[in-house]
């Protein structure tokens, strides 16, 4: 625009010059002398300066000039009222800063860049089975093969499964968390390796070459970033693998993986519909929505069910977009928090709008003067909006600074690495362009929002009204006072919604943390070990038994140890596996419909170490070992659900096939353990003696009199004293695991409570401001009342009554709004109804008391008004 203006004005000069030259020439042609001709031409053209001026005006940017004027004036006004300006900017900075911080988390976690090709088309395909109550389990190979062949919704579909391996021969032995990928998995994700290549189809078949792709982290840390790594052999589980590629640093799928190997699914499994172990990733065809793919796949799985009635007991499919899969459990809490900061921002806006309204009333003389001097209503409106935008821009700038600081804090409390939850790992929360854009949008939005009402109010007033209103005794700005009362009611209502949400979350949190895990995590150290399968093969269980026995003996002699035990898996470390069983004397269920139980193998000391109470029968002893009668202990849930409750002890369970039963006799019943976190339902659990059924997963538990963290080094050493090549996966106090399992809840509760507190303070300031202003405006009236005999108590009642009416209205509206809105957070509440009356009542009382306390200060001031002084006032 500016450039065009310059160019056009230059053209104008040439044009005028040209015009006059032509006219002069014509005049000369008519016979005038050159001097005469030029003079006549000039006269006919008119005032060149004025023409230029008028043309310049055509191209001038009037609004810009006015904006500069408004800005200068606005800045002067803001400087003149430093107290008002500081409070307004601070309020806005808090609101914009909080919103921007939470949005930056949303932006990173839910909207962040995924380093895959067209990630919006990627989806995970989970198995379901209505009869087993499973909604998101891995897929059976039979289903996978059929889906791959017969689906119509996907461009490509790939299989994977977890595959932990022990790396030896490269420093200390390490357990690597790995995945087996079918060859097309990397192509579906669309990620190229940093070095070498990914798995080829010739390797992705049974008997194919043993190859491995390394993660960037493993390559750097264990192989020192060796640029010649490609083609080198490494030893995984005692077998030689050759390294064919290294993935880029940004590639982290599935999260935390260190090595990828070929999946090589054997075709012989094509009829297996019962073992669910494959995790399926697919890329949707263009223009096929998730919903349509889901419908097509559901139809396909019904066909597959019908074709294999004997083995497929109703396997279904559940398509989850990858982004949703990765965001998992943090999505709802984040959106609730985003809504909460939005409310805080609105409350802040209401406060600033209220301040501006109050100030506009005191500025009415200035406005009247402007209007009298010919300022149009639009011009006044613009002036006021400029002022409010200046405020919001200052607030926004400060808010962004605040957000930079807040995001650092949010990273430090972000619930990373929680075994039981699916949350993307977040190492930093950048304030990037989308976040800045959000902050700018919030700034302008708030500037207009809180500015427009006062501006309209001021611009509407005409000089005559103002003159009338400023007469003695009348209530000035009654319209604006009404608007301010409306704002106060609104912010009280919004605060109530926030308080109700926070109250419900706090209530949930209380119930969660005071719920019993079923074991006592304090003073217990857990040491997890995955036995390397090359040296502890499954067909040599004696080696596993000996290892566990020897390590337990070493640990026994550590200082301050009270109890020790071991279990195949620790509670709160995720899901490891189930076993089907049939109760003796009951009709054999159809295949795939047997009851199943969480499957754990423990040593005799485990229950006493973890303090899991024995309810009936006996615990395991050293006599329950290999070769002796097979015994089992069940938890309360299994006993109640399948064994008739109190009579569980003595019953026998068949864990083998019908024709070749494998009987285990129940000798005891223990309390339930919240193995998957306090908020998850109990799974029936079956414990068996480790010695009677050794496995390669083993976790030692040590109860100590002191701090379990101090035992970590010596406990690891105890493992290495038995086998120096055996990696320890992790050693950590059980209380850490217990703590982590509530980390997300703790953080979201803490943040929401913080925002609600902020809202409460802002609302209190808001109602205080309105009441104080109202008292100041009514000084004359109150003085008259007192002069006519009103007691200070009556005045107190008068002012408090007005405040109480506003509060009551706000609280009532808020309760209704909260009743509607808290339902959206029902999924993150625990054991509390979204409209819990006790919570609603408590926050209503809290808000009312705070609001009345805020009114009490101006009410006391009103009581102390000296009638004589008041009547002389103004």
């Amino acid at each position: 625009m500016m450039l065009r203006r310059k160019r056009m004005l230059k053209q104008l000069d040439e044009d005028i010059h040209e015009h006059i030259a032509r006219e002069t020439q014509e005049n000369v042609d008519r016979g005038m002398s050159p001097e005469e001709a030029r003079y006549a031409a000039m006269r006919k053209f008119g005032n060149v300066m004025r023409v230029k001026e008028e043309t310049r005006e055509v191209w001038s940017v009037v609004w810009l000039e006015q904006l500069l004027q408004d800005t200068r004036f606005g800045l002067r006004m803001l400087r003149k009222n430093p107290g008002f300006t500081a409070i307004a900017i601070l309020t806005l900075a808090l609101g914009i800063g909080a919103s921007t911080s939470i949005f930056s988390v949303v932006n990173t976690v839910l909207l962040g860049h995924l380093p895959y090709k067209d990630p919006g088309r990627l989806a995970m395909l989970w198995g379901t089975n209505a009869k087993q109550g499973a909604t998101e389990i891995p897929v059976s190979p039979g289903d996978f093969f059929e889906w791959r062949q017969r689906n119509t919704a996907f461009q490509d579909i790939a299989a994977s499964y977890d595959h932990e391996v022990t790396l030896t021969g490269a420093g200390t032995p390490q357990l690597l968390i790995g995945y087996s990928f079918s060859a097309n998995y990397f192509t579906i994700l669309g990620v190229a390796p940093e070095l070498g290549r990914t798995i080829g189809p010739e390797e992705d078949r049974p008997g194919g070459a043993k190859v491995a792709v390394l993660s960037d982290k493993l390559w750097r840390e264990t192989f020192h970033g060796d640029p010649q790594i490609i083609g080198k052999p490494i030893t995984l589980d005692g077998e030689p693998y050759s390294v064919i590629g290294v993935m880029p640093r940004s590639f982290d799928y599935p999260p935390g993986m260190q090595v990828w190997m070929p999946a090589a699914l054997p075709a012989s499994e094509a009829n297996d519909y019962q073992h669910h172990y494959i995790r399926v990733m697919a890329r949707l065809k263009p223009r096929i929505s998730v919903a349509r793919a889901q419908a097509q796949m559901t139809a396909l799985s019904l066909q597959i069910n019908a074709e294999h009635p004997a083995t497929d007991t109703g396997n279904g499919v559940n398509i989850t977009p990858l982004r949703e899969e990765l965001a998992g459990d943090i999505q709802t809490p984040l959106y609730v928090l985003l809504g909460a900061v939005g409310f805080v921002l609105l409350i802040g806006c209401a406060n600033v709008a209220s301040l501006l309204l109050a100030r506009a009333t005191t500025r009415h003389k200035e406005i009247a003067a402007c209007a009298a001097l010919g300022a149009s209503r639009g011009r006044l409106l613009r002036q006021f909006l400029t002022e409010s935008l200046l405020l919001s821009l200052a607030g926004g700038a400060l808010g962004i600074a605040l957000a930079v600081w807040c995001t650092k804090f949010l990273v430090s409390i972000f619930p990373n690495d929680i075994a039981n939850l699916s949350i993307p790992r977040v190492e930093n929360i950048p304030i990037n362009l989308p976040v800045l854009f959000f902050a700018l949008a919030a700034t302008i939005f708030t500037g207009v929002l809180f500015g427009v009402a006062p501006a309209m109010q001021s611009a509407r007033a005409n000089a005559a009204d103002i003159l009338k209103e400023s007469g003695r005794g009348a209530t000035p700005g009654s319209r604006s006072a009404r608007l301010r009362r409306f704002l106060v009611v609104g912010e009280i209502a919004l605060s109530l919604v926030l308080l109700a949400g926070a109250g419900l979350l706090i209530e949930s949190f209380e119930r969660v943390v005071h719920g019993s895990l079923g074991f006592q995590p304090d003073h217990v150290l857990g040491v997890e070990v995955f036995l390397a399968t090359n040296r502890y093969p499954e067909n040599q269980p004696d080696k596993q038994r000996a290892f566990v026995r020897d390590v337990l003996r070493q640990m026994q002699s550590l200082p301050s140890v009270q109890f020790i035990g071991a279990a195949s898996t620790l509670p709160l470390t995720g899901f490891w596996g189930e076993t089907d069983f049939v109760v003796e004397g009951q009709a054999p269920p159809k295949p795939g419909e047997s009851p199943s139980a969480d499957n754990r193998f423990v040593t005799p000391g485990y229950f006493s170490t973890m303090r899991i109470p024995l309810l009936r029968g006996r615990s395991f002893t050293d006599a329950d070992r290999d070769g002796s009668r097979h015994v089992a202990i069940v938890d309360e849930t299994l006993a109640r659900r399948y064994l008739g409750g109190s009579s569980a002890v003595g019953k026998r369970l068949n864990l083998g096939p019908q024709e070749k039963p494998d009987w285990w006799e129940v000798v005891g019943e223990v309390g339930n353990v919240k193995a998957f976190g306090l908020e998850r339902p109990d799974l029936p659990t079956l414990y068996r003696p480790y010695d009677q059924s050794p496995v390669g997963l083993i976790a030692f538990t040590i109860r100590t009199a002191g701090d379990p963290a101090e035992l970590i080094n010596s406990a690891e050493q105890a493992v290495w004293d038995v086998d120096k090549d055996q990696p320890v996966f992790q050693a950590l106090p059980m209380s850490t695991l217990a703590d982590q399992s509530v980390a997300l809840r703790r953080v979201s509760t803490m943040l929401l409570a913080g925002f609600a507190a902020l809202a409460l303070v802002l609302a209190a300031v808001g109602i205080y401001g309105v009441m104080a202003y109202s008292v100041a405006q009514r000084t004359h009236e109150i003085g008259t009342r007192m002069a006519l005999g009103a007691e200070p108590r009556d005045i107190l009642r008068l002012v408090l009554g007005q405040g109480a009416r506003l509060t009551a209205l706000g609280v009532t509206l808020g309760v209704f709004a909260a009743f509607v809105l808290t339902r959206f957070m029902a999924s993150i509440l625990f054991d509390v109804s979204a409209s819990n009356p006790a919570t609603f009542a408590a926050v209503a009382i809290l808000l009312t008391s705070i609001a009345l306390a805020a009114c009490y200060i101006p009410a006391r001031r009103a009581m102390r008004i000296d009638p004589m002084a008041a009547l002389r006032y103004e």
Partner: protein
Amino acid sequence: MSTKEQRERIELLQGTLDLLILRTLLLGPRHGHAIAKAIEFNSDEVLQVEQGSLYPALHRLIKRGWISVEEGTSENNRRAKFYRLTPKGRRQLALETRKWDKLAGAIARILRPNSQENGP
């Protein structure tokens, strides 16, 4: 209030000149001097436009997108700026002409009510 009335009066005058410029350019692109001459000549020299006032009007029309400007050479091989009617300007001219006719007719009926009934 007085400023507003003044502005409206100016706009009316400008509007008329704008209409005349558009009408002149309907016959083909012209340079500024030629436009001024054409308006003078076609109105039997009744309308004496102060030639300079043509230029703010031309620039206003350019800004609105009703005419465009281009470099060219005139009959006697001199460089000059030619103004050309754009399709948008052509539509605007039709619209303005209709409006003008209506206005002129209405004013005529008010000024000479009888001549309307008796026919021209």
